[in-house]
C-alpha cells in the first residue's frame, strides 16, 4: 500500500484523476481499490458535513466523503462516481463529479499549498491536477473537525 508510505503520487507514476467541479485531483493508482458508478448513498445523520453518507460495497459499509469540503473548498452537489481509496483506517469513497481517468504523471510544475495535497502536475488538455495526500486528507481527526 503505497499510500501509507509515500504521501501522494509522484511524477512518472500512474495516477487516477478525480474531477471535482472545475478542479482535478490525482491519487496514486495503487491506492485506488475501484471506482463505483452512481453509488446508492444512505445519509448519515449527525455525521460531520464532509460525510455525504455510507454505501454498500458488496456487503461492506463504506463512507462516502465530499472531496471539495475535505479540502476546505466548495461542497459537491452530486455524487455520480465514488473513487474508493485505501487508507490506514479502512476504505473510503471520494466523490468525483465526472468520470475518473488514468494518466502517467509528468514532472511536477510546483508545490500545492492546500493542506492535504502535495504537488501540482500538468495533465492532458492543459489542465492542472493537484495530488492528494491520502493519509493526511483521510485521517479520522481531519474528518471529525
Amino acid at each position: 500500500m503505497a499510500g501509507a508510505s509515500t504521501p501522494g503520487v509522484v511524477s512518472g507514476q500512474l495516477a487516477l484523476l478525480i474531477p471535482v467541479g472545475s478542479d482535478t485531483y490525482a491519487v496514486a493508482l495503487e491506492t485506488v481499490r475501484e471506482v463505483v458508478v452512481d453509488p446508492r448513498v444512505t445519509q448519515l445523520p449527525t455525521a460531520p458535513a464532509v460525510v455525504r453518507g455510507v454505501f454498500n460495497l458488496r456487503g461492506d459499509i463504506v463512507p462516502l466523503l465530499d472531496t471539495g469540503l475535505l479540502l476546505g473548498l466548495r461542497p459537491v452537489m452530486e455524487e455520480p462516481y465514488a473513487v474508493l481509496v485505501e487508507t490506514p483506517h479502512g476504505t473510503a469513497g471520494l466523490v468525483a463529479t465526472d468520470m475518473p481517468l488514468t494518466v502517467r504523471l509528468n514532472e511536477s510544475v510546483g508545490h500545492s499549498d492546500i493542506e492535504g495535497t502535495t504537488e501540482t502536475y500538468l495533465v492532458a488538455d492543459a489542465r492542472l491536477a493537484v495530488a492528494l495526500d491520502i493519509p493526511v486528507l483521510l485521517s479520522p481527526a481531519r474528518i471529525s473537525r
Partner: protein
Amino acid sequence: MSPQESLSENDFQRLFAMEAEGRLDTLVDELLELEKGGATPEVVASLFREAHTIKGGAAVVGMPHVARVAHALEDLLEEVRRERRGVDTALIDAVLAGVDAIRTLIPLAVAGQGHEEAAFDAEQRLRIAVGGPPVVDGKAAEEAVPGQAGSPAESGADLAGRDVAAPTAAGGATPPRPATAPPDVRVPAPSPAALPPPAPPAPPSAPPSGPEPGRAPAAAREPHAGDGSVEAHGAADGAAGHAEPARATATEMLQIPVHRIDELVRLIGEASAATLRLGSALLERLERDPSGLTEYRDLVRSLNELQELALHARMIPVMSLAPRLRRAVRDLARETGKEVRFETRGEDAEIDRGVLERLADPLLHLVRNAVDHGVESPDERRRNGKPAEGTVRLHAMQLGSEVVIAVSDDGRGIDVTRVRETAGRTDRSAIEMDDEAALYLIFRSGLTTATKVTGVSGRGVGLDAVRASLNAVRGRIEVRSDPGMGTEFRIAVPITMATLRCLVINAGGQAFAIPLHSVRAVLPPQGSAMVGGRAMTMLDGRPVPISSLAAVLGTGNGSAGPAVVVAGLTRSHAFTVDELIDQRDVVVKGLGELLPRMPAVAGAGVQPDGSILLVLEAAGLIERARRMDSGDRSHEAASGGGHEEIVPQRAASILVVDDALTVRELQRSIFENAGYRVRVAVNGEEALTEISHERPDLVLTDVQMPRMDGFELTEAIRKQASLASLPVIILTSRGSDEDRRRGLECGADGYIVKSGFDQSALLSAVERLLGADR
C-alpha cells in the same frame, strides 16, 4: 491436504505460538491459584504438564531457546510435583519470569531470531529457584531468592503487551510482546471424531449458541484450559502422569484464524443475497411466488441459521482476559506492598474478539489503577476498620446489544475535592462543578491527583487514554465513587456484528432501525403538554419527554405520527416518527474507524435489497434530544398539544436485592430511569430489615447471596401475612428447571434468567406485576 494447504515450518511455528499463548495463560492462572494457597496435586500436575507440553512443542517446531527455558520450568515444577520443593513467592516469581521469557522468545523465533542471553538468564533463574525451601505442610517458608531478574512491574508491562499508564517507564528488560501470529478465535470443534489424533472420550459438543447460556460449555468458561485437541505431547506422555478427568471431558476446541471466519460470514452473506435474487427471478420470469415453495423457505431459513452461527463464532468470553488482569493485580500488589484479591463474575458474557482485544489495555489500566490508587495499604485498611485484604472485582454482563464490564474496588474512593482543586488550577470552571461533574474531570488529559509518580500511575496520562480507546470501539465509560467505600468504573461496549431485533420506522423520509430491547412502548399519535418548558407525553401515568426523531437527527421537522418510547441506560424519551414500518433482524456492523463516534448511531445493516439501514442508539439519541431541548426551550418537538399541568402519580418503589454491586447498580439505573423509586439490599437479611422499615411495591432478588439467599427471602416474605401480596421476582443466572420450580414453589411471582434477560423484558415483567398489584 492439497499442496497449497500444506504447512511450512514457519506455519507450524505460528501454530505453536498460538497454542503456547493459551497454555501460558493457563499456566499463569493456575500459578496464581497456587499462590493463593490452592496447591492441590491436580493444579501442580496441570502446571507441570503445561510446561512439559510447551517444551515438547518448542523442540518439534525448532525453537531451541524456548525449549530450554520450558525445560528448566518443567524441572522446577517437577520438584514441586514430587513435593521436594515448597511453593513460595520466589518460586512463583521465577516461574512468571520463565513465562515472560518464553513469551518474548517465541515471536523472536517466529521471526527467525534467537535471544541467547534472555534464554540463559531465565534458565539460570529457574535453576536457582530449584534450590528453594523444602515442603512444610504443603507450603514453604516465605523468603525470596537472591538475584531476582525482572521486577514484577516489568513482567506485568510485558505481559500486557504495553502499558497504557506509563509507556516508557516499564520497558527495560523485556521487549513488548509483538503479535506472534494472525489473530484466531477458538470454537468448539464440531465433532471429536473429525480430529486426526485419537482424542480422549468427550461428550458431544454444545453448539456455540446453546439454548442455556447459563450452562455454557466448559471451554467457554475456560477458554484456554480446554484445548485438549492438541495434546500430542502432553497427555500421551507417561511423565505427565494420568490424564486429568476435567481435561478429558472439556469441549474439544479448534483454533481458526479470524480471517477465515470473516470470509465465511461474507460468503454466507453473498449466498443469502443470491438466494433473494433467485426468489425475485422466480417471481418475475416464471411467475412463481418463491414464498410458496417449501424448498425455497427451507433454504432461506438454513442460510439465516448459518449466518447467525458464523457470527457467533467470532464471539469469545469477556473473561478470557481475566488471567492477564489477575496477573497484573498480583504483580502490582506485591510491588506496592498491598494485599489484594481479584474476583471475577459473568463468565457467560461474550463479545466480539476484535472488540475484546481493544478492551485489553483499558481494562488493564483500570485494574492497575484500582490496586495502585484505590486499595489502601493493609495498615490503613485495618485503621479504617476494613479487612487488610482489599478486593478488586471484574464483572461482565450482557445487556441487550451491549456488554457492560465493571472494574470495582473496595478502596478509599476518589477524592473529588482534590480532583476539583487540581483541575481548577488550569480551568477555573472546574471549581464551580458539582461532585458528579467534577468526578468526570479524571478523564481529562494530564490530570493526576497522585502525590507521587509511581511506575504505573500518577502521570495523568491514563484515564484519558482509556476513554480514547473506548471511543474507538464506540464504547463509553462511567464512574461512581464512594469516599472510603470504593470506586467502580463501568464500561459499556456494543457487541459488534450482533444480530439485533429492531423496530424499523420512517422519520424525515428515511428508514431507521431502533433496537427492540431499548423500545419501551409505541404510542398512537397524540398531543403533548409543556412541563417546565419541555414537551412531555404520558406513559403509564408518568410524564416522559417527547421530541421529533427527524428534528433530533437533523433530517427533517416535526412528525405527527406515532411516538416510540425508548429507554437508555438512565432515562426514557419518546420520539415521534412518520410511520412504523415493521420489525426485523438486522446484522449490525460498525461504521469503521475513519468516521468519528456518533453517539446516536449504533451502526448499520445491509438489507437484502442492498440498501443500508441505520441502527440508532437509544442512549445517544436521548442525550442529543435533551441537549437540543435545553439549548432551545422553545423547540416544538411534537405537533399539537395543550399546556395542561401534568401531575405524576407517586412512583412505585422497588427493592433490589443482590450481593453484586454491578448488578445492583445496573438494576437501580434501569428502574430509576423508568421512573421507579429504588432501594437496594445486599442479601436476604438486609432486605427483610428494609421491608420492615418501609414496604416496597415489589421485590427483585438474586438467588445466590451470603447469609440468606433469594429462595429463603421469598419464603420469609410469604410467611408474613401483611406481605402475602407483595410481588417478588427472582432474577438469577441459574436457569435450571429445578431452580425455576423451587423459585415458584417458595412463592415467587416471576423467575427471570439473567443471561437471557434484557432491559425491556425485565421492565415489562415488573410493570405487569405492579399493574396487577396496584
